[in-house]
C-alpha cells in the first residue's frame, strides 16, 4: 500500500463528489477510508458510512502522490464488520440465487457458437433490456455476429464493491468456463469491462472501443449532452473517453459539452442499492446541470449512469441507442 505518501493536502476531499453532496456529509471521505483506515486499523471501524463511496476514482486522480485510494477502499470494504446496508445484502442474495445482482428479464439468448460474446451485464439483462436489444442489433448490423449467453453471470465487480470477495471468486470461476470459449468479449458496461480485464485478464472490449472506427450516423435528434461514465474515463482510461466523444461527433450528434459532464452521477459503487437517497440526490444535481444546459437529454456509455439518471426523469441514451450504421 502506498498510503505512506499522503501529504494531507486535502485534494482528494475537494475532488470527492460524495462529500460535495449535501446528503454525503456522513461519508468519512477518501482520506479517512483510503489512507487512515489501512494505517490505523483500530480506528478504522467507521461503520456502514465508510461504504458511501461511488468508486468514481476522482480522488485517485486528484492525489498528487498517486495513492491508490480506490484499491484501499475496496480492501476496507472486504474487512468491514457488521451486516452492511440491506440493499447490499439483497444484492448478495440475488447473486447466490440467480448468479446476477438483479434477475434477468431478457430472454433472447443467442447461443450459436459464434466466436464473439456480447456481455450485457446484470443491469443490461435485468433493467435495461431495450439497451441490450439495441446493442445487439447494432452489432449485427455491423456484421459482428455474436452470442448472448444465458450462462454468463455477474462479472463480480459489484460484489467487490460490497466486500463480497468469496462470491466474486465464485462467479469468476463459473464465468471463466463460459467466457474462455470465445475469442472476444464485447461489453456495454465500463465496470464489467474493467473487471474482465483486470480481474480475469481477458481482452474485453467496451462498446466504445468496438464502434471507434466504424461508419455511424446519429439517431439522436436535437441537442444532447454527455454523461461521462467514471469507469470509462478514469477506469479504462482517458482515451476511451475521448473515443466516445469522437464517435458521437463523427456520427453527427449535436453535442453540448458542460464542465459537469465528468462528475459522478452517484450510480456506482453500490450506492443506489446501499444508500438510495444519496444516489438520487447526486443524480438530481446532475439533472439540474443538464437542465440548465437546455438539452434533450444525455448520451452515455454505462448502464449504471443510464439507470440512475433515468430514475430522476432525465432522458438518457446509451451509445448503442444513439447511433446506427451509416449505410
Amino acid at each position, binding site marked *: 500500500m502506498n498510503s505512506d505518501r499522503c501529504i494531507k*493536502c486535502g485534494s482528494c476531499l475537494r475532488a470527492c463528489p460524495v462529500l460535495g453532496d449535501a446528503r454525503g456529509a456522513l461519508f468519512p471521505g477518501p482520506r479517512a477510508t483510503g489512507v487512515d483506515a489501512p494505517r490505523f486499523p483500530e480506528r478504522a471501524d467507521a461503520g456502514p458510512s465508510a461504504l458511501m463511496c461511488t468508486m468514481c476514482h476522482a480522488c485517485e486522480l486528484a492525489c498528487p*502522490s498517486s495513492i491508490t485510494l480506490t484499491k484501499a477502499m475496496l480492501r476496507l470494504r472486504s474487512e468491514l464488520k457488521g451486516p452492511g446496508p440491506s440493499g447490499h445484502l439483497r444484492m448478495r442474495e440475488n447473486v447466490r440465487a440467480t448468479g446476477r445482482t438483479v434477475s434477468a428479464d431478457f430472454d433472447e439468448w443467442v447461443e450459436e457458437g459464434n466466436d464473439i460474446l456480447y456481455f450485457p451485464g446484470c443491469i443490461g439483462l435485468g433493467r435495461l433490456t431495450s439497451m441490450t436489444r439495441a446493442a445487439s442489433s447494432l452489432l449485427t448490423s455491423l456484421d459482428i455476429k455474436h452470442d448472448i449467453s444465458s450462462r454468463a453471470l455477474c462479472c463480480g465487480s459489484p460484489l467487490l464493491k460490497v466486500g463480497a470477495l468469496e462470491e466474486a471468486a465464485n462467479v469468476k470461476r463459473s464465468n471463466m468456463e463460459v467466457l474462455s470459449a470465445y475469442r472476444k468479449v464485447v461489453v456495454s458496461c465500463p465496470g464489467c469491462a474493467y473487471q474482465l*480485464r483486470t480481474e480475469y485478464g481477458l481482452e474485453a472490449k467496451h462498446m466504445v472501443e468496438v464502434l471507434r472506427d466504424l461508419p455511424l450516423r446519429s439517431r439522436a435528434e436535437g441537442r444532447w449532452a454527455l454523461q461521462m461514465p467514471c469507469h470509462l474515463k478514469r477506469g479504462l482510461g482517458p482515451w476511451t473517453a475521448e473515443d466516445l466523444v469522437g464517435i458521437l461527433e463523427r456520427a453527427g450528434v449535436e453535442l453540448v459539452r458542460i464542465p459537469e459532464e465528468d462528475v459522478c452521477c452517484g450510480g456506482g459503487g453500490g450506492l443506489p442499492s446501499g444508500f438510495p437517497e444519496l444516489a438520487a440526490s447526486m443524480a438530481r444535481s446532475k439533472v439540474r446541470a443538464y437542465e440548465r444546459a437546455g438539452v434533450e437529454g444525455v448520451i452515455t456509455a454505462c448502464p449504471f449512469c443510464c439507470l440512475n439518471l433515468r430514475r430522476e426523469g432525465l432522458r438518457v441514451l446509451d451509445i448503442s441507442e444513439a447511433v446506427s450504421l451509416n449505410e
Partner: protein
Amino acid sequence: MSRALVIGQGAAGLFASALLAEKGWQVTLAGRGAPAAAMSTGCLRSPPGNWRGTLLDILNRAGLHSAAGRRVGVSNLGTLFECALAPDICTWEEGNGPKGLSVIGVEGHPSLRPCLADAMLERQGVRSEHLHLPWKVPPDVPLASRFLDEGAWEVLARSMKEAREETVLLPSLFPLSDLHRVRWLEGHSGRKVLEAITPLGIPGQRFLEVLAGHAMKAGVSMRPGTRLVSLEMEGDRFRGAVLAGGLETRRLEADTLLLATGGALPDGMAISGRGLADPLTTFQVSTAGGPLQGGYAHRGHHLLLPSGREAANVFGAGDCLARSDRGYGGGLSEALNDAWAAVQAMEGP
C-alpha cells in the same frame, strides 16, 4: 503548425499551454494529480513580470476580479498577508484597508478560526469582533468548503447583517461556480465580504480552474489523468512520448516538449538518498543546494542532457527546474514567470 507536448497541469503547464495555443501552436497537455498551485493561496507574492496584463486579463474575464500592486489581505489565522497580485475579494490596496473587521466563522470549520483570527487582528491594531454561525459541519467536510444548501447562504447573510463592522471576514467558501454569491451576500447584508486568504482550499483550486478554463478555450487539447512514462530521443532531439492513463498507454509525437512537472514529489522528481533523480533519466538534474533547490539543469529554459549539451527541442518551466533560491510562498509567481520565459524560448528569436 508546430505541435507541442506539455507535461504538467499546474500553473506553469496551463499558462504556457494557453500562451502557446494563442500563438498558433497545436498543444497537448498531459498531467495527473492536484498540482502545488491548487494547494496555494491563489495569490502571487512576488511582483509579476511582463505577463502581468495577460494574467489579469485571464482572471478578470473569468469573473475572478483581481488587481496587481501592493495588496494586503488577512490570512485564515488572522495575520496580515502582503502580496503582489490577488483577487479583490480577499485583498485591498495597501493603505485602503478596512477600519475594522467582523470575523464570521463556521463552527468546526478548520480554515478560519474566528476567536484566533479576532485576537490576532486586535494585536495587529485592527479593530475586530468574532461571530459563529450556529451549526456544525462534520470535520472532513469543510475542506470541500462548499455551502451546499441554499438555506446556508441565507443564514450567513442574516449573521452578516448583525456584524458590527462594515467588512466581514469569511472562510473561503466561494469556488468559481459560487463567486456570484459574494455580490448576493453583500446585497442582502449591507456588509462587504473579505475572504480569508487560505492555502489548501478553494482559492488555489479556483485560480487553477481559471487557468484551465482559459487553456481549454484557447484550444489546448487536455489529457488529464495521464502521465509521461517514457521519452523517445534521437540524439539531442525529442521525437515522441508514451503516456499512460487508466489501463492504456499511447504514443504521441510532437515537435517540442515542455516539462512543467512539479518538484520533489513522487510523480515529478524522485528523491534518491539526499539528491534528486529524474524518473526518466534523460536530462541532467542539478542537486546543488539540496533537494529543495535542485531540479532540471537548464540554459535559458532549454533542458540539458547528461552530456551537458542542450536538448534541441526540450524546455522546462516551473517547480521542476533547479534554482539557486526558492522564496517562501513565491512558487506561483516563479511558475508563471518560467512559463512566460519558456514560451519565448520555444518561439525562438
